[in-house]
């Protein structure tokens, strides 16, 4: 497969082993084969952009990584060790955190409680508010977040960019290794988008493997090191951003291939969107029409 060769080259160049590797991943929902033999490599210290049209399987892929909807088959390797991830807790235990598009923050809680939501620090049964507050402050400072006045503010009072910041901070507070961001800039203005992208870059610079899902190629070309393109449930390409142009990525997204990169023609045929097509002529087959003469 093209993608494997591509990754191998990259690995040779950077000299770092991927932190997360997916090979030949399949996932179906009933009769719908959403992911078909998908490969993906996530390297520490790099931003891997995951792009693709609506319905290409991006969400399914990250939900599988996060253990929300486990994959049907395929190899899931973390740090070179094959692992099974069938629920979110297992993913969290490995150090994989997902920041969802619709934020998943509780408006009626303050920043500290949101950061530690579901994993509160306790001391003899009581919440260890002081330690949580200190770690929250440290984490935000570590991400160079200076726009938040107090970590005791309710999340409801934050701007969109600040909320996104809190959501991202939550993903790194647990010494995570891989952070998956689902369209973090989708609902933000220009300045806030810039702020969040800087934060995304900083995560990678701190040595985390970052997977950035985005519809916005500007974002992708601004922060990503690698771009992985999903096309109708198949990985069309995983290439270094430096090696492709914006137009090539657009072509990959819309048709699955661009010149030498992308799905091979044979694969294309196999991935034909309407497999029922060959059956259609049978309906109009004159022989069968003859068969129904009274």
């Amino acid at each position: 497969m093209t993608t494997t060769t591509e990754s191998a080259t990259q690995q040779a160049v950077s000299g770092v082993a991927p932190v997360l590797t997916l090979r030949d991943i399949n996932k179906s929902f009933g009769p719908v084969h959403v992911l078909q033999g998908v490969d993906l490599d996530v390297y520490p210290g790099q931003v891997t952009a995951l792009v693709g049209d609506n319905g290409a399987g991006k969400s399914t892929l990250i939900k599988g990584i996060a253990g929300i909807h486990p994959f049907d088959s395929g190899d899931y390797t973390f740090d070179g060790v094959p692992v099974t991830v069938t629920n979110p807790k297992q993913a969290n235990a490995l150090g994989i955190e997902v920041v969802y598009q619709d934020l998943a923050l509780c408006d009626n809680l303050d920043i500290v409680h949101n950061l530690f939501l579901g994993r509160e620090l306790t001391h003899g049964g009581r919440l260890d508010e002081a330690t949580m507050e200190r770690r929250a402050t440290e984490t935000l400072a570590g991400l160079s977040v200076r726009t938040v006045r107090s970590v005791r503010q309710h999340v409801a009072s934050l701007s969109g960019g600040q909320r996104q910041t809190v959501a991202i901070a939550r993903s790194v507070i647990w010494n995570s290794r891989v952070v998956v961001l689902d369209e973090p800039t989708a609902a933000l203005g220009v300045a806030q988008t810039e702020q969040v992208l800087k934060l995304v870059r900083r995560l990678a610079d701190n040595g985390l493997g970052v997977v950035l899902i985005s519809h916005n190629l500007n974002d992708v070309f601004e922060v990503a090191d690698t771009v992985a393109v999903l096309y109708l449930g198949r990985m069309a390409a995983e290439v270094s951003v430096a090696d492709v142009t914006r137009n090539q990525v657009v072509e990959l997204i819309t048709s699955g291939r661009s010149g030498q990169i992308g799905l091979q023609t044979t694969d294309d045929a196999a991935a034909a969107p309407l497999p029922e097509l060959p059956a259609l002529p049978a309906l109009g087959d004159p022989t069968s029409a003859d068969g129904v003469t009274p």
Partner: protein
Amino acid sequence: MTAPPVEASAAEGSPSAGPSGAVGSAMRDYVVRVRGGDAGSLPAVLGLLVLVVVFSVLKPSTFTNALNFSNLIHQSAAVIVIAMGLVFVLLLGEIDLAAGYTAGTAAAVMGIFATQRGWPWWVAILGCLVTGAVIGLFIGLLVARLGIPSFVVTLAMFLGLQGVLLKLIGEGGTVSIRESTELIAINNEDLPVTLGWILAVLTVAAYAYVTLRRATLRRAGGLQSPPNVVLLGKIVLVAVPVLAATAYLSIERSPRVDRVSIKGVPVVVVILLVLLVGLSFLLTRTAFGSHVYAVGGNAEAARRAGINVSQVKLTCFVIGATLAAIGGIMLASRNNSISPNTGGASTLLYAVGAAVIGGTSLFSGKGRVIDAVLGGLVIAVIINGMGLLNQPSSTVYMVTGAVLLVAASVDAISRRRAASTGRL
């Protein structure tokens, strides 16, 4: 895009204000919070003060006397405890319409254990609590595991438990618990005056200790904490009412002193205090409490954060119904018996009203245990004061209804303000 107002206002209210400006800045913060729709206990406290003043002016002799004051406490105790349970359910955005008859049914079990079976009083109370917990578990399972809306489940339970109550005590009959002095004592007897004072002083001292210790620990850990003047103010705000109430309850209030002496803090106050402190601790200082608020604020976020949402719901229904059972004990103790009306009539509506008047939101995610106490007192003052004014029950119902509407409006308005100023 609108500029985020928070960032702009970050400069003001900076914590580096000097000690003289500390009180001022704390006050300003509070005013900003209230105007932003986070009024807390303010409406309930103001409402309570207004009602007390009005009734004191209209009925100076009877409303303000010490006997009536202790009466107020006895009358409100059951509603307050049931409302405490409802706070847990309302925080999740659910409702328990069966809380009233849960109280009645559990009390009936207690009455039967204590009289017909002749078991010791504490076995009877245990039976009562278990009954409440089982009812809560049943409701919780149907709501949290099966996913039936709580409104429907508890409406069914409201009708069903009414039947169970009738079945337990026999059509039209009553179970008298007059013989069981311990059960009667719960909501009728008073503590010895000295013991009342000791408890009052201990309460204030404990509050002061906890408040100051937390501030010291936070400062030692390099975290912000309100200035000492503000902490002292909070302690005084707790100390004054507690000590004043103790003093008032410690004077002789019997109308016939030659026959019987009535003085001291009612026993039921101790129970209310223990529940208030214990449940507040549970909600604000434990991971479970944090999860309750999280589920009420955004159940999906809570689920993704790994919180077992249905477990939290189930637990809250069990807590709510168990507290309703404790309310049932107080109702039975006050009336010396359990009748088909125990926990019926307006008990549930008063309890829901108490929680909402106190400041617990009907829109989930906002509420505290103290709300139940303040709201319960407001309702008790209305009923008690209107009674003293010889108003017919028609008027009492209308006024109570109006107060509940006002409280719900305050809730809705503060929610809108909160949305517009970015608080919730």
